[in-house]
């Protein structure tokens, strides 16, 4: 593994296709946090990590996309991703994808070793603490599946949030149960997904939190869509938006304005 070459590690930000399209604010929030954490950030030209085709069984398409990601991102000390499932794709699945292609396999393994989910990178690799920020809210946290089970992210977002003194974190029941997003699953099996997310929002509402936070925009869109349908007042944000205090533009799914 390459050690960071300078005291300021170079970070390639893989912003993810969903953030790029639907919630640029999360990308800017990630940049603010990484900047505060002392990183040199670059945003290479990018599209998607390839999960949609990978999970649909189209390996050829996935490999084409993955090769491009490897080509673009392998020069950084770290590749940082504000999403557990996209980070998991690079870390856990790219090496498997190229099992039969030694050249790309080695590069994929190398890239995987330097890829991090945003919050775990800030907390575990950098030891970042949120600078004095006041945010008088009660929040609850949903553990998105890939971050939790593929990357073992559980304590990191909580410790990041706990470093905001005035913020109160209350746990929902079954925070580790899937919200029913599942990429294309939520539109292929809309009714099953709807049942799953309605159970998730019941757990969320029982906490009487002001905000529900998470680390994956897909899940957050799903939760936000369902919360607004039932007329809930609970606002949805990516954990990075709250940690960076970039919530002025309104919660996910609602009118977000500009950054």
């Amino acid at each position, binding site marked *: 593994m390459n050690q960071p070459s300078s005291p300021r590690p170079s970070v390639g930000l893989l912003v993810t*296709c969903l*953030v*790029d*399209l*639907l*919630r*640029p*604010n999360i990308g*800017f929030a990630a*940049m*603010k946090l990484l*900047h505060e954490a002392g990183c040199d950030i670059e*945003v290479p*030209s*990018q*599209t*998607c990590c390839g999960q*949609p*085709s*990978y*999970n*649909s*069984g*189209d*390996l050829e*398409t996935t490999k*084409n*996309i993955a090769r*491009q990601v490897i080509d673009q991102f392998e020069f950084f000390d770290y590749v940082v991703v504000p999403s557990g499932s996209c980070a998991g794709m690079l870390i856990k699945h790219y090496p498997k994808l190229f099992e039969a292609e030694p050249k790309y396999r080695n590069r994929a393994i190398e890239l995987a070793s330097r890829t991090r989910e945003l919050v775990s990178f800030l907390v575990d690799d950098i030891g970042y603490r949120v600078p004095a920020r006041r945010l008088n809210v009660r929040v609850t946290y949903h553990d998105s*599946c890939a971050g939790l*089970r*593929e990357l073992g992210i559980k304590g990191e977002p909580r410790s990041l949030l706990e470093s905001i003194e005035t913020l109160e974190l209350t746990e929902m029941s079954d925070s580790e*149960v*899937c919200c*029913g997003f599942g*990429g294309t*699953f*939520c*539109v*292929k*099996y*809309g*009714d*099953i*997904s*709807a049942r*799953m997310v*309605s159970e998730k929002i019941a757990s969320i509402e029982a906490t009487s939190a002001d905000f529900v936070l998470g680390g994956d925009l897909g899940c957050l*869109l*799903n939760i*936000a*869509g*369902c919360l*607004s*349908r039932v007329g809930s007042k609970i606002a949805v944000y990516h954990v990075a938006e709250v940690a960076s205090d970039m919530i002025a*533009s309104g919660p996910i*799914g609602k009118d*977000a304005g*500009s*950054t």
Partner: protein
Amino acid sequence: MDSKAHKFRENAKVALLDPDLQRALGKARGGFVDARTQAFSCLDRHAEIQDAAKQIKDHTLSVLDEYLVLFEKNVNKVGGKVHWARTPAEARKIVLDICDDVDARRIIKGKSMVSEEIALNYALETAGYDVVETDLGEYIIQLAGEPPSHIIAPAVHKTRQQITDLFHKHHSRLGLKERVTDIPDIVNEARLVLREAFLSADVGITGANFLVAETGSSVIVTNEGNGDLTNTLPGVHIVTTSIEKVIPTLEDLSGILRLLARNGTGQEITSYTTLSTGPRRTGDKDGPSQYHVVLLDNGRSEMLAGEFKEMLRCIRCGACLNHCPVYGAVGGHSYGWVYSGPMGAVLTPLMVGLDGTKDLPNACTLNGRCAEVCPMSIPLPDLLRKIRVRQNEERITSVRARWFMKAWGFLACKPHLYGWCLRILAWLLSWLWGKPHILRLLPFVHEWTATREFPKSQGFTFQSAYRKAPNSHE
């Protein structure tokens, strides 16, 4: 049982709207999960035990043929007989021939998923035998004329009220006219009815949770003791089971047993663990005079040789079903065949064919909770993805879906073009927000907006904004 897996979508729709089913599922879901957590909270060295169990299975599977031959040799040694069945039809024929040979009339059964896999009850009943299931759950669904909806709790989809009604309907003609509503009364009434069957049966059929090669024993774990009566009272005991159930030694058995019940029902061990080793020996006080083991393949050899080998480690504990949020929402019958939940979504396509089981591997968010709890560390989401790859290769995936992926993939490999398309899309999505009459017309969007609000996008993409002002965060 004919597969109805091709109707998964319709089945699931009905299931989601069935209040009785939802009540039953809701109750089971919480119960099983809590019981498992509790059971493991007082087991030291969980990871170590699990790892050892996985190694036992991996080792056995690496030389499965040798252990199967050893098992057969030891069954012969104690006076039993092993029958090899490549297909469900062969297995059915073997059982029918044995029953015919001994002029059987009444057959009692302990729970056996392999017997469900080969649709044995239907074959026996069609041949004129009187067949009675003796496991309470199996008995209930036999009365209801339904297949099991869970591998360890076949009637988990039934509410107590429904069972009361079923018993009343079927037992009234036996003179039991009172409606039983409490669980102990329900159990007692079943006992009363089944006692007669136990005493008058000619053949007892059970499954096997394990086969022990070194002793030639078949092992069943139960909580009701019905299995013991089924394999000792009738003159003939037939075990319907499959080739991957064999393990080398009794020592191995005791290791794996520490995981089975804890993962399934949350018990440390089931009430009964019964080893059957051959027919009655001289001097034995009871036991059958014939002992047959029917070993089914049904696609397992092919799995053993290919990329789904790991699935053969499955010990049918049921933990993956209990922890699956999709199973918890739609129940076992939606899957349309014998096995359901995550393990069923892998096994059914491999056993009944990829055609007609298209939805099973796809109706999953790949959330990974199944693999997390599986005592045999079976990477279920990876296996589901592998089936999706096969579906794609064999063009079972719809043309529309395949072309959509190809077109999207083409675009995703052209960052510049993709960037422009995304910008237009971001603008379009923000324009569409608040226009439900147009949104409704777009493919897939309706599936989302039926129960969720369409999200407001910011109207521009991250990359376009960033390229305009790369240092805005500083």
